[in-house]
């Protein structure tokens, strides 16, 4: 299992940094890598997030569940800079204020996202999709004269193998099946070598086998990357999660292991109504 992740990332950088606090550099010495405090977002009076506070530890694999409209996707929008909260603070480590940054800056800082609806570039090949995601200098002129070196080529090939798309390497992403697109997007996430991966409904449209492999992959990354998974499939959540957060009406209802959460009377009430 461990070698699986090592294969993916080669040398895995230590999540905890040195002892000096440097403004703008990721500092996770206090444990959490993501701090959301008292975050509220409202759309036309509807409170999508309601004074939500949430901490994600460095290296942890966290699952988020909750009924529709609980604010799971809005939460990801806030973290990645797509939506600006009305109030609250969002910090990446101790020093990086995510509310001061836009989407590309946040992505480059190391917070990457897989969307609910698989968002791959249909007109480009599988290889090219991954090439675009590859961690690199992403300014215009540097992109114009960008050449992949052998090592990077190998890395892309490795990821293609991991996501099981070797046979489709030079096919356009548009002709892939839904499950394959999901995997391609997960591959794009891996290419970015993120510190935090936000994964929105990763297994929708996947076969049983693909689901098992997704769980295997996410578990293998635990410890090296912080991963936040939003998923409806309880069986899947149970198979990967050590800690589950239940969202309800824009706030955290409860947190704990899957068993604790499932036996919490408030959770039962929220899910079953009553």
């Amino acid at each position, binding site marked *: 299992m461990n070698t699986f992740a090592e294969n993916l990332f080669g040398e895995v950088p230590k999540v905890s940094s040195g002892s000096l606090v440097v403004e703008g550099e990721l500092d996770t010495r206090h444990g959490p890598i993501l701090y959301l405090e008292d975050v509220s977002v409202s759309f036309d009076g509807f409170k999508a997030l309601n004074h939500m506070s949430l901490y994600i530890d460095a290296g942890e694999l966290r699952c988020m569940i909750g009924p529709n409209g609980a604010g799971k996707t809005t939460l990801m929008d806030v973290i*990645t800079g*797509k939506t600006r909260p009305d109030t609250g603070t969002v910090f990446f480590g101790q020093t990086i204020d995510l509310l001061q940054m*836009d*989407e*590309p800056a946040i*992505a*480059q800082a190391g917070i*990457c*996202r897989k*969307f609910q609806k698989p*968002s791959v*570039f*249909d*007109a*480009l090949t599988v290889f*090219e999709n991954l*090439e*675009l*995601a590859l961690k690199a200098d*992403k*300014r*215009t002129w540097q*992109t*114009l*004269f*960008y050449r992949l070196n052998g090592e990077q080529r190998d890395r892309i090939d490795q990821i293609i193998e991991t996501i099981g798309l070797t046979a489709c390497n030079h096919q356009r992403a548009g002709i892939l099946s839904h499950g394959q697109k999901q995997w391609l997007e997960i591959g*794009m996430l891996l290419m*970015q070598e993120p510190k935090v991966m936000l994964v929105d409904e990763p297994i929708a449209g996947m076969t049983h086998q693909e689901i098992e492999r997704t769980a295997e992959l996410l578990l293998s990354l635990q410890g090296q990357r912080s991963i936040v998974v939003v998923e409806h499939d309880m069986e899947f959540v149970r198979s990967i999660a050590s800690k589950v957060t239940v969202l309800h009406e824009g706030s955290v209802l409860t947190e704990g292991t899957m068993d604790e959460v499932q036996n919490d009377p408030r959770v039962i009430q929220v899910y079953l109504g009553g």
Partner: protein
Amino acid sequence: MKLIGLGTDKIGTTVLIVLAAVSFIIPVCNLATPADSPLHFSAYTVSVLGKYLTFALLGLSLDLVWGYCGILALGQGAFFALGGYAMGMYLMRQIGTRGVYGDPLLPDFMVFLNWKELPWYWLGFDNFWFALVMVVLVPGLLAFVFGWLAFRSRVTGVYLSIITQALTYALLLAFFRNEMGFGGNNGLTDFKELLGFNIQSEALRSVLLMISGVTLIAVFILCRWLVNTKLGRVVTAIRDQESRVRFLGYRVEMFKLWIFVFSAMIAGIAGALYVPQVGIINPSEFSPLNSLEIVIWVAIGGRGTLYGAIIGAVLVNYSKTVLTGLMPEIWLFTLGAVFVLVTVFLPDGLVGLMRRRLQESHS
């Protein structure tokens, strides 16, 4: 060849060969044979062909922003006209004392307006190289300022299209004014010579045709290379899923700006090649209708292929020349009808049709 992916691309290769043939054989024949030789093309043919090639260059520039980056720019004609004006200003200053009023410094229209000295923005245009720099710099600068404001505020889709129309319309109105100092309604005309050569001479016309062809080929190859770089792929990705590209860490607005400015510069070069061949530049080149026509060329030829824009521009303009000669009143109706038919039945344009035929004949 591999770098620009032409080896396997039959249509692209054919277009290149035809372009090379037109831009070399015709001028060489004309320069080498006497006027009564059967190998001699008429001055009219030469200048019309030269004009088509500059339109093809203009179409190419639009295809880059529209076909590859998804920016439906309806003001591409503005950059073309600005490039044309820059060249026109050089040609005006070459007239010298041969103008109607014989003023050594001021163009005729300024003398007519009782202006005493040359406005500051006309300075330097007596130098050909300075004018050439302006041909790309002025459209590029306008595209930069406009694009910077529009793309940073994330103006997209129809809204962007409308403000590009407004941009070219505003320039049309501005250039109509005599006080602007660009000849007002009449524009710039009565050119005498280019780099010391008589602008009416057949030899210069042939050379201009050749230069237009060579420029088109060079820009075509440059664009082919460009769309096959990583930047080209980022731009294509922006066309299909703009917000997703942001989450990969690319500054979408900078990429749009880059490609928009680059395309405006190409349009400027096209305008500069156009003006000496038609002998006039006036504000009507800024008319919003012109910019719409460019979109139609590219749509008919086939978007996102580069050579589709070339084929479309040449075919539509050839039809225009023929039809406006025969029945001028039906031209706009024909153009509209063809545009609708192509949009409905050939969304990939003529090039898409050719590709399908080629594939069928292979299988």
